[in-house]
């Protein structure tokens, strides 16, 4: 066995790891510090003798108070949550059935269909929003939450379908064959055996879909115009940048509060999420 020297482990493992962690977490730190900094500290030059660019000497919750009282932020948060949840549920249900069909049923054109679904995922939203805006207008859905609940699945369903198709393929066929011999119909075997076994995959597809719709920007920007109906990413940017004035403190406070739900969701389901992506079922 090779005995590694301690300093080597530090050099090749801990040091790069530390650099990486610093690199990824610094923006969050910056966001937090800016949100807690009083205005007079925010808007003075760094060259000043008393400047403390990396920390604050007078932390304040003033920006949070401003954000919650002067803007519709609580409403935005609620909108985002509702829209993300509804579109995630719609996409998961469609993705589960479509993914199962593509993974298990052999029908004419099934491979083509699988590829076609994947291709729709690759069409950039910046192109799709133009025809979608047309459809939303024709259906008179503009400026209602349904505009987003129904357009988010256009990219979430292909995503969920592919992720779940991959997961279903890792589940041994014999499981449902056995269920069918045991007295279940094909549909029954899917619902009673395959879906419960696929919970890690379904959860990670759900988490991903939730995050994607939580962070979605362009559709939310275009389809929603009333301040009350906006989602967090759009609301924060459109209401807290007035002309060329950036309300940095409130912007960062909004960003911080907006990222908490996603962080919570990830931390709760992190174990499922990892097995969901690597896909493993042991009989």
């Amino acid at each position, binding site marked *: 066995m090779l005995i590694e020297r301690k300093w080597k482990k530090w050099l090749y493992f801990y040091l790069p790891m530390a650099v990486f962690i610093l690199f990824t977490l610094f923006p969050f730190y910056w966001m937090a510090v800016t949100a807690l900094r009083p205005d007079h500290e925010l808007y003075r030059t760094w060259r000043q003798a008393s400047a403390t660019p990396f920390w604050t000497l007078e932390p304040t919750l003033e920006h949070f108070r401003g954000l919650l009282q002067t803007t519709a932020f609580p409403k935005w948060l609620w909108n985002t949550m509702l829209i993300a949840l509804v579109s995630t549920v719609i996409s998961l249900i469609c993705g589960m059935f479509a993914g199962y069909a593509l993974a298990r049923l052999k029908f004419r054109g099934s491979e083509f269909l699988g590829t076609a679904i994947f291709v729709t995922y690759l069409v950039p939203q910046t192109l799709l929003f133009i025809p979608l805006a047309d459809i939303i207008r024709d259906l008179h859905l503009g400026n209602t939450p349904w505009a987003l609940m129904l357009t988010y699945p256009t990219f979430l369903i292909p995503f969920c379908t592919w992720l779940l198709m991959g997961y279903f393929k890792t589940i041994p066929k*014999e499981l449902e064959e*056995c*269920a069918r*011999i045991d007295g279940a*119909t094909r549909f029954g075997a899917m619902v009673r055996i395959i879906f419960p076994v696929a919970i890690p995959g379904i959860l990670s597809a759900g988490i991903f879909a939730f995050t994607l719709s939580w962070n979605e920007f362009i559709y939310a920007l275009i389809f929603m115009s009333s301040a009350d109906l906006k989602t967090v990413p759009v609301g924060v940017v459109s209401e807290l940048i007035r002309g060329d004035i950036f309300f940095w403190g409130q912007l960062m406070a909004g960003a911080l509060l907006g990222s908490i739900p996603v962080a919570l969701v990830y931390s709760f389901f992190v174990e499922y999420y990892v097995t969901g992506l690597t896909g493993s079922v042991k009989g």
Partner: protein
Amino acid sequence: MANVTIRNLNKKYDGGFHAVKDVNLEIRDKEFMVLVGPSGCGKTTTLRMVAGLEEITSGEILIGAEVVNDLPPMDRNIAMVFQNYALYPHKSVYQNMAFGLQMRKYPKHEIEKRVREAAEILGIESLLERKPRQLSGGQRQRVAVGRAIVRHPEVFLFDEPLSNLDAMLRVQMRVELKRLHERLETTAIYVTHDQVEAMTLGDRVVVMKDGWVQQVGEPLELYGKPLNRFVAGFIGSPAMNFVDVTVSDSSGVLWADADGLRLKVPPQLVERVRAHAGKRIAIGVRPEALHLASGSDLPEYSFDTAVDVVEPLGNEILVNFRAGGAPMVARVDPAVRLKARQNIRVALDPERVHFFDDKSGAAI
């Protein structure tokens, strides 16, 4: 309890692969029928068609008196044990065994009774609350069997159920399955690629190759009277020795000649071999039908050769040598001491010689 009848069964896959060709089988009530053959011979496909998991291209399958071609698996009253056990990973052992009964809407106390009963037969009462991932391979195997027997089906189907077990456990489970079958007296169809399993478990054995049934018979019948060269070579370990020979007729006595080998055709086979005079045929001799020649052996059934490799197994010694241009193995008394390159004289038992047609491989 039911017999299973398979008539002119065919399976052609979409790609054109013809997996099962015109299979006809009659599996009697309470019989343990084993399908054996090399991989790709169609045995598993046949079993899956009986289970209803694979569509039938043509032909008929009857369970009891009923044609089941178009019945879904759930309505065939069968139970199947899979090679990878296929236990439901999210259910406990108890729930795994109860699932089939729950699907059939059995009352709760009846389910409980049957699961306990099956668990007792298989010795897994203490495992009922565990999840499959907490079980060893042998325990999982028992649960899979238990799940099949709680249903009291008309037919058991086994798809290589012992292949994933290690050698020791496989031998042990083999005995248990046999005992279980004797106790439950249910028709069983068992697929394996292991000829030892086939011989030990089967009341009758079906040997398949390339989708065709080669021979159906009781184990000893397959061993003693193989219908063709494939069955002769597949059943038995070490395999039967084959040497290509030419038959010549010298004034009424038939001789089989090969490179450096000249054997007299045994009297019981003379009539049948005569038609092949002047042609090439194969002679087949099992390793145990060969022995080191002594004074009492007739010279027309003996030949000289040199030892190639000796495999001392303890209860027997396998001697490898070449004769008539082909490698051969003889199973000899463990008391004999032999060395590589030693010259020996080998005699064969004329009662136990087989001849096979060179082209069709059929026994002569």
